[in-house]
């Protein structure tokens, strides 16, 4: 039995190192936060910065967010990069509605946040949050790719810590 004892001990060590117990929700959120699949939704000049973020110099894949999908069915994050005109707004809403749950929205640039330099225009929607709910706002005109990464990492925090978000939003 001594030999078995030693083996048992070894196995216990292995268990400690390799098995983690957690709630399923936490694990899923942990995974989601590390691999957003953004739907490519470039509308104006901010889209150029989003493309630069995808290129090798800034390299969005360092964070695992490089899987830009051309279809909303396969995406869980919408980066609204640019000016939302009122003619485009129904399309934005439709694409958001077509995305599968859970889904998040990043509003990139002052245009998507609030209308930006075109807020007085008859044709521009003053802020994309008037038609879809927004999780993270990235200020700037345009925001540099680093800002986009910072926004994505903020969203990661938000996704991985739903309790903190609830606390900040509702106080309980």
């Amino acid at each position: 039995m001594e030999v078995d004892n030693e083996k048992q001990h070894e196995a216990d060590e292995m268990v400690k190192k390799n098995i983690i117990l957690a709630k399923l929700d936490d694990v899923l959120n942990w995974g989601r936060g590390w691999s957003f699949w953004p739907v490519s939704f470039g509308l104006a000049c901010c889209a150029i910065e989003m493309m630069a973020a995808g290129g090798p110099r800034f390299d969005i894949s360092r964070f695992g967010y490089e899987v830009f999908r051309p279809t909303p069915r396969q995406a869980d994050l919408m980066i609204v990069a640019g000016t939302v005109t009122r003619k485009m707004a129904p399309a934005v809403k439709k694409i958001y509605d077509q995305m599968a749950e859970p889904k998040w929205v990043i509003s990139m640039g002052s245009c998507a946040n609030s209308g930006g330099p075109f807020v007085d225009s008859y044709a521009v929607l003053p802020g994309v949050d008037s038609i879809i709910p927004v999780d993270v706002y990235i200020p700037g005109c345009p925001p540099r790719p680093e800002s986009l990464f910072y926004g994505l990492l903020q969203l990661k925090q938000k996704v991985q810590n739903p309790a903190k978000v609830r606390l900040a939003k509702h106080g309980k």
Partner: protein
Amino acid sequence: MENSVLLKLVEELAQKLDGEFEASLGTPVLKIKGARTTEALQAARNFSGTPCEFLHDLTAVDYPDRNEIEVVYHLTSLRGPQMIRIKAVVDRNNPVIDTAVRIWPGADFMERECFDLMGVKFNGHPDLRRILLWDDFEGHPLRKDYVTPSVEERKRLRIMQPGE
């Protein structure tokens, strides 16, 4: 040198159509009544020697104090680097003018844009709809007296249902 030819031709045309003629920075400008547009455009297109057969641009300018809208045509002659400008004056309250699509099929989209933003109606246009703005937009935003709705109003978005 060649421009002097065109200046002379346009001046003659102005007399024929009882319009006004002026030279602005070397470009002959012909100002006529809206009703005579087709005549003027046809004549300019058939100028002997330097036919101005390329419609460069078609737009309009709003003059609320004179209660007029000027529809502006820029024509270029491909036989030499020169351009003429034809301004057709229409009434601001009822801006109707004959279409240029019969002469230049390429005028189609330019006239639609002009209708969309300035509200000029082109008689005989095959498909006069809005081109830049959405279909249930109210008003013509490049008119000088257009008032942009407030931010709150623009935030309220009504999405058109299919078939509406």
